[in-house]
């Protein structure tokens, strides 16, 4: 177990370095922040001076080494746009993104799994046919469209819910939360639904497919033959065995929820990391963009690790393999 974790850690560091390198290299070509930092009236000499002050005229390897050196200490340098530490900006924005992602993930799980089970058990019924059709929409509609439609219906037409922002937040030390106020929850509903929509339909279709698969297997038939009640067969045996892929997907999807909340945050002016990233792109703010990508890579690496560990807990067959030869999926 320990060897397994150590191996994963070494891999994680390699992944992080690669991501950092690629991010940094890519972002060297997104443009020049100096033209935005200085107004139209700055002289060429001032521009040159600023470029030198920011270290932008140094060769790429030097800039990258500097970046990694800072990153190791938990620092990502300064945002060129806001003149603040990138780490501080990310910490300020992280709670908003995490709360949104977790609520969306819970929504997707709590609605998606039962719907999937229902669609599998009542295959062919009108309701489950309808669920399948609607879920196709959920998978194929782009996030921004869902967001805009929700805003149009619930904020503009019905005026039940607010269309933008995070509402009233409560500070618990460095963490700000909107979950403690009614206003915060009201602001959370639409973006969370928007973000959850894709995951929800994905989970539902996955659970349905897996469930149908499992229901065809021998051990279910034997369980039935032994006269176990439906409830036990379906939920005790079948559902439990469909959960392994669902855990993987949900885990990875939590990562993508955080990573791809960019569009939802943009549509709802949700003050999270995604919005920060979009603003950084519009400004060629390389340190923010690189740090964001590294952070997202870190999230994925951690989630992968947790998912692997959960496999051990759920699937006894994996425990038989010796850790040293255990695969690293």
């Amino acid at each position, binding site marked *: 177990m320990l060897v397994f974790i150590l191996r994963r850690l070494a891999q994680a560091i390699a992944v992080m370095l690669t991501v950092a390198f690629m991010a940094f290299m890519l972002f060297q070509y997104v443009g020049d922040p100096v033209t935005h930092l200085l*107004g139209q009236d700055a*002289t060429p000499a001032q521009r040159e001076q600023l470029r030198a002050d920011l270290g932008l005229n140094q060769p790429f390897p030097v800039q990258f080494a500097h970046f990694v050196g800072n990153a190791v200490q938990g620092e990502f340098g300064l945002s060129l746009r806001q003149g603040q530490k990138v780490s501080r900006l990310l910490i300020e924005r992280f709670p908003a993104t995490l709360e949104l992602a977790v609520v969306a993930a819970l929504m997707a799980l709590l609605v998606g799994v039962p719907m999937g089970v229902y669609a599998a058990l009542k295959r062919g019924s009108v309701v489950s046919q309808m669920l399948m059709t609607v879920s196709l929409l959920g998978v194929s509609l782009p996030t921004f469209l869902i967001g805009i439609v929700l805003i149009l219906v619930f904020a503009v037409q019905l005026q039940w819910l607010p269309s933008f922002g995070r509402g009233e937040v409560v500070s618990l030390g460095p963490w700000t939360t909107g979950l403690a106020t009614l206003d915060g929850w009201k602001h959370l509903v639409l973006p969370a639904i928007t973000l959850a929509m894709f995951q929800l339909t994905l989970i539902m279709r996955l659970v349905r497919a897996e469930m149908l698969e499992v229901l065809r297997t021998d051990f279910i038939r034997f369980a039935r033959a032994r006269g176990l009640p439906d409830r036990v067969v379906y939920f005790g045996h079948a559902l439990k065995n469909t959960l392994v892929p669902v855990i993987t997907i949900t885990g990875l999807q939590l990562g993508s929820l955080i990573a791809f909340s960019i569009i939802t945050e943009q549509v709802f002016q949700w003050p999270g990391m995604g919005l920060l990233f979009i603003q950084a792109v519009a400004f060629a703010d390389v340190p923010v963009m690189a740090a964001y990508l590294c952070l997202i890579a870190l999230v994925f690496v951690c989630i992968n690790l947790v998912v692997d560990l959960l496999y051990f807990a759920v699937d006894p067959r994996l425990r038989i393999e010796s850790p040293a030869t255990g695969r690293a999926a």
Partner: protein
Amino acid sequence: MKTCHLVSMALGLALAAGAAQAVTLRVANQGDAMSMDPHSLNESLQLTFTGNVYEPLVARDKQLGLTPGLATRWSQPRPNVWRFELRRGVKFHDGTPFTADDVVFSFNRAAGAGSDMQGYTNTFKEVRKLDDHTVEVETLTPFPILPDVLTQVYVMSRKWCEENKALAPVDRRKGIENAASFKANGTGPYRLKERQPGSRTVLVRHGAYWDKVEGNVTEVIFTPIGNAATRVAALLSGEVDVIEPVPLQDVERIKASPTLKVMQGPELRTIFLGMDQKRDELLFSNVKGKNPFKDKRVRQAFYQAIDIETIKSRVMRGAALPMGLMVGPGIRGFSSDQNKRLPYDPEASRKLLAEAGYPSGFEVALNCPNDRYVNDADICQAVAANLARVGVKVNLQTETKVTYFPKILRRDTSFYLLGWTPSTYDAHNALSALMATPTEKGQGQFNLGAYSNAKVDELTLRIQSETDQAKRNAMIKEAFDAHAADIGHLPLHQQSLAWAMKKSVTLVQLADNFMPYKWVTLSEKAR
């Protein structure tokens, strides 16, 4: 008698309570002010927002003319010296009286390290205090438009900056932050109550403001909403009172609402096309061995091929003012009798091209941003279609402003679209930045095609230090005529500002895109 007294007292109290009722204005803008420090960033949104909290010596009125601000009078005792008499009885938000020391301190702060306002102060030689209510600014050379320039330089309290260790503006290069970036203490009609960068900034009325405030707004909640559709939705759903800007395609929809209205008016910015007139061979063209743009007939052919009225009606949905000059109304030096376009005439255009030796046209690349000006990429597309009609094949290259500007500033272009607002509200700025021959000193920095005319250069230098306004205006006129005779650039139009608001909101829309909250009124029934 006694009851009568009581009743009148109660009435008085009720009235007082009514008057004290908060009138809240909720504003959504596409961006946010980066900092509360008025010297840290020279950008219009930054300056329009902090301009409600801080004030300059010389202010602008509703027509963008000069009007007394913290200075009541100003004069030019010697060609190199401007003298300002300061307003008495003005107090900062923290109660400190405003004096000449604050002005000297602020101007030096704006001119010093870390300041982004050095473009406004680089003509300063010395700022000195004559007495508590008189300040003199000595400039390096005679500088006739100093009062115009100073409208953007806001005054801070020396005492407050010392106490808060905010003696210099935040230097974004070093990441030094100080109190001035998220707190504020000005003399303006509003003081800062709450600041959450990127999500919400709240201003409240400054009770001891020296001037009468026309509007009735006592509280302003400013929210940045980057996504245009969300911004419009926030207005439609009633969550905000004013939004800026409105995307042109939503103007009709908002106008159709019984409770909302749209205000459109010309912005100071002029949109134009520029051509490489320096290289002997264009970088991006199929003409080899020579540069067609060096031939005035080609430039005129391009000019007359552009159907500006159709661009106005189709691309800009009416929200544009076609221009024949490189500066628009509101800029000192603009004259409407000079503002005449050459007629749209594809036939003449084809003839000119044939005369110049291109009877079947040629190919050239047009560089264009797609997220900087209103419908910028669509304008370029229309221009390309216009030019195709006279045989010129335009290879359109549109890209985001982040990559566009570094590229064209490297002069990596043959034909480009640009918009320009003179930051001094004076024609000299446009002449110097766009039309004068590029030099090492920064002149002609945005003259990306290196248009060059010795007469224009000479006039530009003389205009800079000519203090006789009549002579100065005559020289500006002459320079513009010389530029127009050469067809140095192809002016297109001034785009319109588009703001939308509830019908209950009355405000003043300024062509420089500033929104002073002291001129905003919310009518009774809306509250």
